[in-house]
């Protein structure tokens, strides 16, 4: 019994001293998860957007300039979500 008590005490002590490390690990895990999840939607979105733009340019090459400008605009708006995810990653990981 006394051995078990000693082990429990040591584990509790280790848990209190490693609280900061545990928090850092949780922060790192949360950061990775945040960025990974934030990248899914914009990845699909940008792929679809550029694919459709290429199709439009191939069908109507004379409208390529206009399509390209609109494509970059769409990419900029879609990409913002992934970049906010990246900022959350930085905040969770380093701050």
């Amino acid at each position, binding site marked *: 019994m006394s051995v078990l008590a000693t082990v429990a005490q040591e584990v509790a002590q280790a848990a209190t001293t490693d609280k900061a490390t545990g928090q850092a690990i949780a922060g790192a895990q949360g950061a990775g998860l945040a960025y990974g999840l934030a990248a899914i939607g914009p990845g699909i979105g940008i792929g679809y957007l550029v694919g459709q733009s290429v199709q439009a340019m191939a069908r109507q090459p004379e409208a390529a*300039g*206009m399509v390209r*400008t609109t494509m*970059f*605009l769409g*990419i*900029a708006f879609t*990409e*913002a979500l992934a*970049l*906010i995810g*990246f*900022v959350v990653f*930085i905040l969770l*990981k*380093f701050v």
Partner: protein
Amino acid sequence: MIFGLEFPPIQNIVEWPNIFGPADSWYGFNKIALINIVALAVTSILFILGMKRQLVPKGAQNLVESTVAFIDDGIIKQTIGEGGLGYLPFLTSLFFFILICNLFEIIPFFHMPANARMAGPAVLALITWGYFIVVGIKHQGPGHYFKGALFPPGVPKALYILVTPIELISTFIVRPFSLAVRLFANMLAGHILLVTFSVLCATLWVLSALVVVLPFSFFMLVALTGFELLVAFLQAYIFTILAAVYIGGALHPEH
């Protein structure tokens, strides 16, 4: 720490000590400020060189004229329309300033994009925000501009409870925020990417067994440097085109 690879803390890769003066002083001048001053000087010099009006352009005049033609054809004609030539100086200086600040990401001995600190993009986004609001007020009058922006026509009356707060947030709060965050996060991500591969190369150099991986890592570093050159151009282009879109939206009210 993985296999002896120790990534430096984020303070060490984005915060720079003052070149002169004590730390925390109001007149402190560090690398970011130096890059901003250089970008300002180069932009001004390009404007002065572009004022030469030779019929057959040479050298710097050629560069300036082709950039101005690019901004005129690729950005203003596509977004604002024919009447937008008056905004060319603002958009050109915005483009050059952001481009030169970004290019310092891959210039040797600097290797730091000035826009990877939030202050620079935030100021540029606030200037753009103030500029498009002033353009809207000047061209439509304050009442008409804010009425058109907050109460878009063609919406049923009852829906304004929902639409007006959304328009207020998306036009006047999210626009400058997303402009600044887009530029900042892109440049910071590129900087961290380059730092990661540089640290990897330096670590593999001293590890005896893993040195066979070093060529691949070095190849990635070189390839990513080329990729960051592309990103520097693209982000300057996207910031300018979004500024032009916002100005165009303030200039032509929706019907």
